[in-house]
Every structure is written in C-alpha cells, then in structure tokens.
C-alpha cells in the first residue's frame, strides 16, 4: 500500500477525467458539505475504485464525474471538456455519448425490451433504428444475452438485468464507465460474474470508475481512492 499523495490523486498523463479542487455543498436545513476540495485524475484505460462509508461523498463524486450534477466550485473535466460548468443540454449530451452508467438497482426501463434498453442512449444521440438495433444486439451478445434480446427486464434475473445495464453503458462507446455498487442488488456468486464482466470491459480498453463499500469488489481495480467526510483520505495503488 503506497500513499502517493495525501490530498489528491492526480496524474501528468492525458487523463479521461480531471477533477480539480471540487466542492459540493447542499442546503438541507443547514449547509452540508458533501465534497470539500477533491482532486482526482483518471488515466485513460485505468480502473479506479472509490471506497468510503455511506455519506462520505463518493456518490456525489460519481454524479459530478458523470455530468448528473454540477460542483459548487472547482473543475470537472471529461475528455478535456469542462462539464462542471456546462449547461444542462451539454451535460445531457456528454452523459449520452461519453459516459456509461451502471447502477446498483440496474435502472432499466420497465416497458422496453433488453435490446431497446441497450439502444436507448443511441435514441437520444439520433441514431436510426437499424443501426441502433445492430449495435445493441452486438453488445447484448458480448455480455452473453444474445438469446434474451426481446425480453422485458421483469423477465430477466438480477444478474441478467445488470448485464443488460452494462451492455447499455457500453452501447454509445463511452470514454468512461461509471459503476455505482454494481453488485449491491445481486447475490455474491452473480456479483462475481458481474465483476468478471467489468474486468473484461476494462481489458477491452475502457476507463472505469467504480464506487463501492466492499473491499473485495474494490480490489478488482488498479487503484483504490479512499474517501471520507468529503475528502480523499488516501490512494492505494494495487
């Protein structure tokens, strides 16, 4: 375990994500500081896990990097683009094309089939139906669901749903895959298979940011960033 830098986890190379001194405060009765000056870079092709107890600010960090939220101060860059200060439409487009989310609760559209769910990001990118389906089928096959294309989420098991979600995350060929407790809603055996799948995604050259509180899951990554009380406590290279 090597503590490279106490406060930050930056790199000199061309990073996919650059987070510079980001603060995020919420008004909830009083002022709650979710992030208190966090800087972190994600190198291209890297696999980073963010660990911390609940309320530590790890989900906030994920939301900021994914363009779902904007920082109170500081910079968030994705592929060289400042998304922290960007407007809603720009962030939406970045979410659609540069980021693939994998959520704990899968977050599939209940009335869309597996293939339609995977193709959904491409709908908002303006892809035509044929190309969308082609791409979605390809990704579903690569996660081993070639025989479940036209099933609704409710007809799939938890592990299958998470695989659909991973296929969806990869469909737009994003610069970054964000996984928020991806094994939180499946049994440990299924969880292990989901993590194997993510390993494969990483090996294919994708940059992954994984949020978890489970050390065994986090150890799949190259690097663990420990976060507590809105600050980076330490960075662990594996």
């Amino acid at each position, binding site marked *: 375990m090597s503590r490279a830098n106490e406060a930050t986890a930056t790199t000199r190379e061309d990073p996919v994500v650059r987070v510079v001194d980001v603060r995020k405060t919420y008004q909830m009765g009083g002022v709650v500081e979710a992030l208190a000056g966090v800087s972190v870079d994600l190198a291209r092709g890297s696999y980073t896990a963010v660990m911390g107890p609940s309320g530590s600010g790890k989900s906030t960090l994920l939301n900021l990097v994914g363009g779902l939220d904007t920082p109170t101060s500081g910079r968030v860059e994705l592929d060289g683009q400042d998304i922290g200060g960007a407007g809603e439409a720009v962030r939406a487009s970045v*979410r659609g094309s540069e980021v693939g989310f994998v959520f704990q609760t899968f977050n*599939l559209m209940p009335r869309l089939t597996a293939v339609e769910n995977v193709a*959904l990001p491409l709908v*908002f990118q303006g892809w035509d139906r044929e190309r969308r389906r082609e791409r979605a089928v390809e990704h579903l096959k690569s996660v081993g669901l070639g025989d479940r294309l036209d099933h609704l989420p409710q007809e799939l098991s938890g592990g299958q749903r998470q695989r659909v979600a991973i296929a969806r995350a990869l469909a737009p060929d994003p610069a970054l895959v964000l996984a928020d407790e991806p094994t939180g809603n499946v049994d440990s055996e299924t969880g292990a298979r989901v993590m194997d799948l993510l390993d494969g995604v990483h090996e294919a050259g994708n940059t992954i940011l994984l949020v978890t509180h489970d050390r065994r899951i986090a150890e799949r990554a190259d690097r663990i960033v420990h976060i507590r009380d809105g600050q980076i406590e330490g960075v662990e290279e594996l």
Partner: protein
Amino acid sequence: MDVRESLSMAFRSIRSHKLRSTLTVLGIVIGIASVVTFATFGASLKADVVSEIGDTSASNVYLVTSPEDGGPFGSAIQPVFTEHDLAEIRELEGVRAVIPRGNVPTSALRYRGDTFARTQVTATTAETFTEASLVEGRAFRAGESEVVLNRAATRAFEENVTVGSTLTVTMQSNRSVDLTVVGIVERTQGQLPVGGFGSQARFFVPADPFYDATVESPTLGVNQRVYPQVTVQTDPAATTATKERVQSSLDDSDAAELAPGGAEVTARTSGDFIDQIERIIDRLTRFVTGIAVIALVVGAVGIANIMLVSVTERTREIGIMKSVGATNRDVMQLFLVESSLLGGFGAVLGVPLGVLVGWGATEYAEITFTLAPTWFAIAVTVGVAVGIVAGLYPAWKAARVDPIDALRHE
C-alpha cells in the same frame, strides 16, 4: 430527439395504460363531438333556411313591420297595409305584382267526414300562384268559393284530396263554407321567406270574399281591407331600385300611419332576409358552440390531470432517460407528444361522432344535413392544441425532474 421516436415511445406509454388513456381520450371525444355537433347543426340549419328562401324569390320585395331598433323581422306582424297602399305601390316603376296576404281565422276543415283542426287559412290573390308553382289545376278566382292547397295539405286528411274535391271550412264565427279545390301548388310567390321548417299543410283562399279584416284608411277616410303582409314582385333587373321606390312610397302610406308606436314599415328583399337569418343563426351557433367548448375544457383538464399523474409515476424512468443522455427538451417533447396524441385521438374520434349526432339532430329537426368540413380540420387542430396546452405544465414538470433524485425514487 426525433419526433418519430417520441411518437413511438408515447404510443407505448398510452398503450400500457389502456383504460386510463381511453377515459382521458373520452373526455376530449365528448368535447370535440359536442362542438362538431352544434357546428354541423348550425351549418345545416343555415343552409336549409337559405335554400328554403331560394333563388326563385330573389326579385321579391317583402313589406313588413318591425321594431325601429332593427330587431327581428316579423316580431310585430300586424295588419297595416291597406288596399290604398297596395294600389299606390302597383303604380310604381319596376313593380310587376303586389300580392297581399292575410289569415282567415277558422276552427276546422273537413273532408269526407275527416276533420283537420286548423286555426287559420291563408287569404291572398291569384297572383301568388305562377304557372310553375301550380302542379295541378289552376289558380282560384276572386269572389269564388275556391281553395288551392299545397302538397302537404292534400295529405292532411285520411283520404287524399284531389282537384275537384270539396272541403268544408268552419269559420270562427261558426259559419261553414264549402270550397272547391281548384289547384295544387308546389311553391307560392307571396310567402314570406320565413316559413318554418319542413312543409306544413297550407290552404289558400281568395281574399275576396273571405278576408274581412278592415280598417279606416287614414288617407281616404273609408274602410278598406288591411293586410299584415305584402309581397311585391319586381322586375328582376331592378329589384334594388324598386325596393327603394317602394320604401319611399311606404314612408307616407297608410301603413306608416297605422303601424304601432316604435314600429316601422320596411321593404326587404329576400337577400336582406337571408343576411339577417344568417347573422342570427351564426350568432346562435357560436353561442351554443361556445357552451360546448366548456366540455372540451373539461376534457383538457382531464389530460392535464392524467399527465401529471404520469409524470409522478414515471419519475424514475425520466431519471433513467436523463442518465443515458435525454435532455430536458427531449423529456418535455416526449410528454408533449403524449398529451397531444391523447388530444389528437380525441379529436379524430370526436369529429365523426359529432357529425353523426349532428346528422341525428338534423333528422330530428327535419332539416337538410350539411357538412361543415372546415370545422373538421379546426376540430382536429383544436384537439391537438388542447392536448399540447394541457400537457405543457406536466411536460415542463417532467423536464425539470432532477435525475439524481429521480434515480433514487422508488
């Protein structure tokens, strides 16, 4: 986001709540159908009345008394036109014939033992009938006990009346007179162009000797027959000019003297009547259609309500869509397309229903059915517009959903 994609997603959402969507659409169907019903009925009524007045009487000038403020015609039909007035008008340039009309009060008409209750028959002159209007027989002769019937009147008794039959008329004075049927008419010249709907039975008798309403002519100082209604047939090439001459002749006529206070005697062409009738029917149609619009507003409230419910139910879906790249605009578009689809469906179903009910109403009122096609386009546009307006607030609310909260939403 492509509108076709929004359409297909909106369809899916509507289909997934069949009952709810059906009921919402029903609200709009009722609204649009009521509007179309009244618009169709109004258009039919107008066309029917106008066609009843017809082109054949375009050269007729009608003398009527009406309140000075230009209120509805015929509101003060009183016998004011004396024989003297008629004689004066006959002398005017462009006048071809002057046909007076009055009512002879009766209590009943009898034909071969069958009685037809009737409070009046029409007294007029032979000029009221033309070659073309007489289907059978001839016009009556002044001074004779003869009667001319229209077609409806021939069927008024158990046995059909034919030329040569004898009708017995009981006057209100209980005096009975036997009248010989001499002719059957299709359409008469002297009829005021406000005959009411359908074809009523009409009986025409010569004013001489049956019409006996008299008054002292202010000009001549002697008793004369006096009529409530007069039709002046004019040279078709100079109807307007002749109408002007008739009007100025009326200004110092017996009729002007006899007209009750606040009323004036006026000469009107059938065109004047048509204009006035059209104005009145249009106003009525707009008024009633305006009431029907209330139903449409209720339907719109239904759409707004269901869309709000839908936004709440689909908060999580909105969050998912936003996380995979939907902009606020995309989300707004999706919900607006859905609400305008509901409105559009309502309109598409409401128009035929409205036409059907409108047709039923015209059948019931025995008037000719006329379609008002521009109203269909308007109705569908309005339906979609109602959907959009009703969907605006829900769609705006959906667009503003915070994806982070929404994804946590259960």
